[in-house]
């Protein structure tokens, strides 16, 4: 069996969906964030696959940008979670219902 572009895209979309479901069903902020990372990496696979099949380097460069952005997001995101934890020792997002209505 030859591996085609479609296979990679399928893998990418499956990973993306797993991440998406993880974000919606999990309550732990850290795991939600890990699921988001999973989604971003799924996109990276798509970028790489497209880049490899079209022979354009742009897609590979894009992956580096995505990695950098994900790192920056992680920095800010974990900072927010730590600040939250200091005020209220919980990482479960459904404990946070101060703002609503």
């Amino acid at each position, binding site marked *: 069996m030859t591996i085609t572009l479609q296979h990679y895209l399928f893998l990418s979309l499956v990973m993306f969906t797993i991440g998406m479901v993880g974000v919606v069903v999990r309550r732990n902020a850290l795991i939600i964030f890990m699921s988001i990372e999973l989604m971003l990496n799924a996109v990276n696979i798509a*970028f790489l696959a497209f880049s490899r099949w079209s022979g354009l380097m742009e897609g590979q460069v894009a992956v580096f940008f995505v990695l950098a952005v994900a790192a920056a997001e992680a920095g*800010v995101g974990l900072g*927010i979670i730590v600040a939250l934890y200091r005020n209220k020792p919980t990482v479960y997002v459904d404990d946070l219902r101060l703002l609503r209505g």
Partner: protein
Amino acid sequence: MNWFQFLGLTLPWLIVLGASLTVLFLGTLMKRGAHAVSMAISLLSLVAALFLSWQHWVADVTVSMGMMSFGRMTFLGWMVIAIASIFTVLLSHDYLARRKLGHPEYYSLILLSTVGMASLIAGSHLMLIFLGIEVMSIAVYALAGFLRHRLSGNEAALKYFLTGAFASAFLLLGIAFIFGTTKTMDLTVLAEQLPTVLSGDMASWFLFGVAMVLIGFAFKIAAVPFHAWAPDAYDGAPTPITQFMATAVKAAAFFALLRVASPLVVAVGPGWAKTLWLLSAATMIIGNLAALMQDNLKRMLAYSSIAHAGYALVAFPTLSTQTPELVHGVIFYLIAYTFMTAGSFAIVAFAQGQGESADVSHVAGLAKRHPWMAASFTIFLLSLTGFPPTLGFFGKYFLFSGAIKNGSIGLVVLALLSSAVSAYYYLRPIVVMYFHESREGVLERTSPATSLVAVVTIAFLAILYFGIFPSDLLAIVQRSGM
């Protein structure tokens, strides 16, 4: 590529970037007075950016360079975000000083976020647009939780951050698929390749990518049903940052959406019109209805800002490269919206004083104690409602008459009805300000800071002046081309 010209064109934001880094280093060097100095540097750099953008606009340069394309529309967008950020910086000083939180990194983050917006507006390459959005957003995630000792601030930041990162993944997936199917991320090349792509066998993957990008943008402009983060994030964030999110962030996202959408609409066909119709209708209806129930002024304005995004979306179903009047209508509306929203949030920041939030009852008796503040707030609210001769009325007038001309009658009917409903909640603070007695001690001791008065005054004058002479502003918008 002429690097000198490129440096010249991006100079406004290089200055702001430089100011951002300076402020950051300053924080480590200075112990006392850092707050005032960093505020002054930020303000100066933004005013310089505004001035230089205006100069570019006057010089009327149209050129594409690398991943950016410059033109009057770009410069106009830059001016809008510069003005919105100036308002934020002005509001912030007093707000942070009262809470003893005057840290330089706050200003540094605002400036960084503004640089992100500038590249988002100028970007003609999907990767740059993505990076612009991320630079803009990541800074705002941190700013939203800047009151880090307050649980509501943490909650707002976390909710905004998680949903924002989630939406980014969608946007990015869309970009990947558009890249994969068209073999380019450059918007101009993309527009040329559309016919071939759409007739090819990858057409549905391409459309999937377009849908994903649209989702990413719908999140940024807080269109229903991607809006749910907005009221909570607006509510928990420091009021100047709420103003920043409601004006600068939203305006930048709309400018970018206009640029991305105009070539795509025709390609996508009827599905686009249907989707945008639904988005627009749902956004203005849900936004206005939810705003009715709010006692908290910040939440009320948050929903109102959702509703206004819905009005701006009225132009999108029939948008194309052949409809300049729609593009101009949206941009005119955004400018009007920026002034009236910034002004309203300034009043909220004043009414809330040291408190966590401002309820409608906080403005009771404002008319007696601070008649000019009350009069300005009245004008802002009337403008938000769409009363002539305020700027808000002409925003709606140009937008909706353009939409009617292009056949969106049903949507305009909905918009007018829901804006009639909006009179209920915009009216309430006016009644309370003028007809209710103030509660003891709420407004008694406070008098507005000079910087806050400056924001209110500028917004007030802009709304009245451009309400009476809308053609001045319209001419600027119309001469900006597409």
